[in-house]
């Protein structure tokens, strides 16, 4: 049970470090320790962000980026989970496909972006495909590990109590591998931010990446920081939302999900 003081501790302390850094930054800037050409103070960055919010520039870029992230995330994650579960459960499939996955996974997803532009043309499709591929392998590898880490005793119980293949999948394999599937999803969301910004640097007119790149070219340093702040905020938001979802969906995690096998 979370006590009042506990709740305060869990929400106040993390916020304290963040605001502390911003306040320190502001003070150092105002006292002239930081060159405003490179390190404008947070208050000016926030002011710049607000004016971008008011003229709609921020929403425009943010919505484009979010669309790419979520479209790519869904397109990559869903097949990644399915294939990962399948490879985890079927040794034959795993032996067949594991080398392919092992060879493709370490390629930086930005490295294949030019290829994607050749295949899909310069447009939304190639950008979303890059994000999707980035998510796909992370989720696949973690889902597969999730299945392979399931304690053997759960399979024995299922077999002893007469589970069919379908029941085995839906009642044992899927829920038991959820904690690692979540790990994959968390990594995939982080990666999708990296990939989308990289892709927008080189091939987009709108989006947070494009906004950062344009600010560098026109040397609007505060705008550039707004872009970085937005990335940080998005990352933070993803983490918090996922953590909440995880606590709801897999409340048992950390309580002998993967007990030591004898």
């Amino acid at each position, binding site marked *: 049970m979370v006590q009042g003081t506990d709740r305060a501790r869990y929400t106040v302390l993390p916020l304290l470090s963040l605001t502390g850094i911003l306040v320190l930054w502001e003070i150092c800037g105002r006292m002239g320790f930081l060159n405003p050409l490179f390190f404008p103070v947070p208050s000016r960055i926030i002011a710049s962000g607000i004016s971008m919010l008011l003229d709609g520039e921020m929403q425009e870029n943010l919505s484009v980026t979010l669309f790419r992230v979520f479209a790519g995330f869904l397109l990559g994650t869903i097949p990644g989970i399915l294939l990962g579960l399948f490879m985890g459960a079927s040794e034959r499939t795993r032996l067949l496909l594991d080398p392919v996955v092992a060879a493709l996974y370490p390629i930086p997803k930005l490295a294949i972006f030019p290829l994607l532009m050749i295949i899909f043309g310069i447009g939304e499709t190639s950008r979303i495909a890059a994000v999707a591929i980035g998510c796909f392998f992370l989720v696949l590898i973690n889902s597969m590990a999730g299945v392979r880490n399931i304690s053997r005793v759960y399979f*024995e*119980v299922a077999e002893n*109590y*007469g589970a069919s293949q379908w029941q085995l999948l839906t009642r044992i394999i899927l*829920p038991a591998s959820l904690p690692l599937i979540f790990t994959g999803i968390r990594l995939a969301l982080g990666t999708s931010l990296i990939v989308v910004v990289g892709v927008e640097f080189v091939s987009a007119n709108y989006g947070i990446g494009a906004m950062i790149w344009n600010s560098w070219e026109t040397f609007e340093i505060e705008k550039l920081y707004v872009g970085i702040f937005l990335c940080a905020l998005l990352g933070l938001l993803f983490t918090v939302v996922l953590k909440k979802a995880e606590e709801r969906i897999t*409340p048992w995690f950390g309580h002998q999900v993967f007990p030591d096998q004898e």
Partner: protein
Amino acid sequence: MKLECRNICKLYGEGTTASRALDTISFETGEGEFLSVIGPSGCGKSTLLKIIAGLLPPTEGTVTYTGDNPGTPLNSMVFQEHGVFPWMNVIDNVAFGLEMRHVPRKERYAQSMEFLKKVGLASYATRNPHELSVGMRQRIAIARAFVNNPAILLMDEPFGSLDAQTRLILQDELLNIWSEHRKTVIFVTHDIDEAILLGDRVMVMSGSPGKIQEIIDIDFQRPRDLRIESTREFIDIRIRIWNILRAEVGRSIGGDNHGAGN
């Protein structure tokens, strides 16, 4: 329902490096009999139970179930520990076997509730197993096996990881439920007192390879409780079993002063 095992052998590995886990195990159970199986660790008693359950194939020999089987499962197993699914709440765990046989939800919950009451967990029906103690979790496993209404119950050291007091209480509860339903039970344990207290007969095994040394009739009247443990008769049986086991245990822990050869 009766069970007959004929000349069961189990080898692990192949050729000259194969190790023999079980050697010509033959026995049968009576109708509604409670058979305790005791032996040093590594004597193959869990392997024997898995062969009886159909989870492992024997290298040689046969397991035969004889008697009327009115459409209920042949056997249900209570596993050592960790056999309770952390992603299902208490009542879904208990109802697992019924769910696998497509018993409608309302009916399987009603039946499960009945057994949850018997093990004193009725008010925990919608809780998650990780919120419960180890003893409570083993009660779930026992209720799950009983509600499945198998012809024969197989129990693999179900109380092995419990503290002494909890163990006494669960032994008592088990005897109560058993006397009500009179199923044939094969109960594997490494605790001599537990084997005598619960069993109609005690099958004493020795290790490497696993063999039956002796099957001892236990003639105490039922209902039994802890009080029989202080009788002369009980102590005699206990010494008799210990004399068989001592040589075995000495051999498996090494040293010169315990073995039968001295």
